[in-house]
C-alpha cells in the first residue's frame, strides 16, 4: 500500500498505457514503433499485476511472480522480433508495414 495514492490512480495510468499501445500498434508506420507499442502493452499488464497484488492481495506474491515471468518472456519476444525485422529490412530495404503487401487477400 502506497501512502495517499488510491488504487484507481494507478489503474487509470495502466489502462491508458495499454490502450496507447493498442492505438500505436494499429496506426504506426514503422515495425520498430509497433514493437515499442507491444512493449507498452506488456508493461501495462505488468503494472496491473503488481498493483493488484500490492493493494488487494498483499499476503501472497502470485501477481509479482507473474509480472516477473511476463518481463522475461517480453525480453525474448523483443529479441526475436528485432531479428525478424532486420531480416525484413535486408529483403525489402524498408520497414514500413503498409508496403509489406506482397501477399494480400
Amino acid at each position: 500500500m502506497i501512502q495517499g495514492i488510491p488504487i484507481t490512480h494507478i489503474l487509470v495510468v495502466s489502462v491508458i498505457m495499454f490502450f496507447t499501445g493498442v492505438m500505436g500498434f494499429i496506426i504506426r508506420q514503422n515495425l520498430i514503433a509497433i514493437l515499442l507499442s507491444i512493449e507498452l502493452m506488456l508493461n501495462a499488464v505488468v503494472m496491473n499485476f503488481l498493483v493488484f497484488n500490492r493493494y488487494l492481495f498483499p499476503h501472497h506474491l502470485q501477481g509479482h511472480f507473474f509480472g516477473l515471468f511476463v518481463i522475461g518472456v517480453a525480453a525474448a519476444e523483443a529479441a526475436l522480433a528485432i531479428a525478424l525485422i532486420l531480416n525484413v529490412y535486408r529483403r525489402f530495404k524498408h520497414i514500413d508495414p503498409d508496403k509489406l503487401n506482397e501477399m494480400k487477400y
Partner: protein
Amino acid sequence: MNLHSIILLRHEILLTVAAVGVLFADVFVPREKKHNMITVSLIVFTLVTLLGFIPAQGGVLFGGSYQSSHMTDFMKDILNIAVLLIFLQSTGYLSKPENSWKITEFFVILMFVLIGMDFMISAGDFVIFYVGLETASLPLAGLAAYDRYKSKSAEAGVKLILLSAMSSAVMLFGLSLIYASTGSIYFSDILPKIKATPLIILGFIFFLSGMGFKLSVVPFHLWTADVYEGAPINITAFLSVVSKGAAAFILIIILFTVFKNISREWEWILYALVITTITIGNLFALRQDNIKRFLAFSSITQVGFLLLGFMGNNELGLTSVVYFMLIYVFTNLTAFGVVEAIYNASNVETISGYKGLYKTNPLLSLAMMLALFSLGGIPPLAGFFGKFFLFTAAASRGYYILVVIAALNATISLYYYLRVVKAMFIDKSDNPVAKFRSTWPMRISLIISSIGIIYVGFASNIFEFIYSLAKGLL
C-alpha cells in the same frame, strides 16, 4: 524429484532429452555429413512418440501448477503423432542442398515448441500456461521466416511475431483482470470464485480474444492466410495442425473446468464466433487459387466446426473435440503432404497448376482426394464422423439453429473442396506436373495418414476410449 514425478512428466522429459541430445550430437557431425542428422532425428523422435504411449496414472505436481491425467496424456500423444508425420514429410525440403545448414535447428526448434505445448496442456496455473503458450508460439515465428532469401517468408515471420505478441498482451490484460477479481492464478483456486461479474466477463473476453488469435477464430484470423502462404510448407502444416490442436485442447480444458460457472455467458460468445468463423472462412476459401491460402481458409472453417463441440459443454463435447482433432491431424497432414511433395518436385502451389495431376501422379491425386473428401465430410471417411459428433454435441444442448447453419456451411464447403478434385481429375492441361517419385519418408507418412483417414472413422472403440478419458477429466 522422485520416480512418481518423472513418470508424470514423461512426455516433457523425453522431449527435452531428445532435443538436447540431437543438438549435442550435431556438434560432433562434420559439415559434409549433416544430412545424417535427418535419420538420427527421425529415429529419436519415433522413440519419443512410442515411449509416450506407455500408460501411467495421472496426478498433480509443483503444488498444483502441473496437472496430468489420462486425457492430457492422450492429447500429447496426438500432438506427438502429428509432429512425427510432419518430420517425415519435411525430409524432402531439408535434403535440398541449400537447406543443409537448417537440418538440426529445424528438428530441435520444433521439439522445443512441442515441449511448450505439452506444458501448456498440463498447466495448472496461468503462469505455466502463459510460459508454455509463448514457448509454443515464439520459435514458430522464426521458423516461418526460415526461407531467409524469400521475401514472402520474411514477411510471414514478422507478421506472425508482431501479431502473436500483441494477442498475448491482450490475453495477459484479461488474465490480470481475472487475477484482480479472484486473487489467485491457480486454476483450482480460481474455479469457486468465478461469478458473472462485469470485471470477470471483461477479463474473460480479453482472454478469449488472445486465444482466438492462436486458433484463428474469425475476427482474429487475418494473419492466417498471409503467414500460411509465406512460411515453408512443413511449418504451415505445423501451424495449422499442431499449434491449433494444442490451443484448442487447452482452451477447452480451461473453458470446461475454470470458467464453467459462467458457461451461460461464454456459450453465447462462442455462438457468435462459430457462425462468423464458419461463414467467413468458407466465403474466402471460395476465391483462392494458391493452395496454401486455400488450406488456410479451409482450416479456419474447420476451427469453426471445432468450436461447435465447445458448445456441447459436457463429456460429449470434449470427446467430440478431441476425436475431431485426431481426425483433423490425419486429414490435413495428408493434404499438406501432397502439397509439399508436389512443391518439392515442381515448385507448383496453385490450384490451376494441379490440372491433369491424375494422369501423371495417380496415387498422390488419390491421397489428396481422400483428404479433401474427408475435410468436406463425405460419409465413409473419418471427417464425416468427426463433424457428426461435433453436431451431436451442440444439438445435445439444444442449439438446433446453430447446427443447421453449420450443416449448410458444410455443404457450401463441398464446392471448393471438389473444385480442387475437379482440377486434378477432370480438367485437361497442356503442361501438367511431371511424373515424379516422392521420397520414402514422405510415402510412409502419406500411407499412415491415409489409413488414419479411413480407419479412425470406422473404429468406434476409439471414440468410446476418448469418452472414457473425458469422463475422468470432467
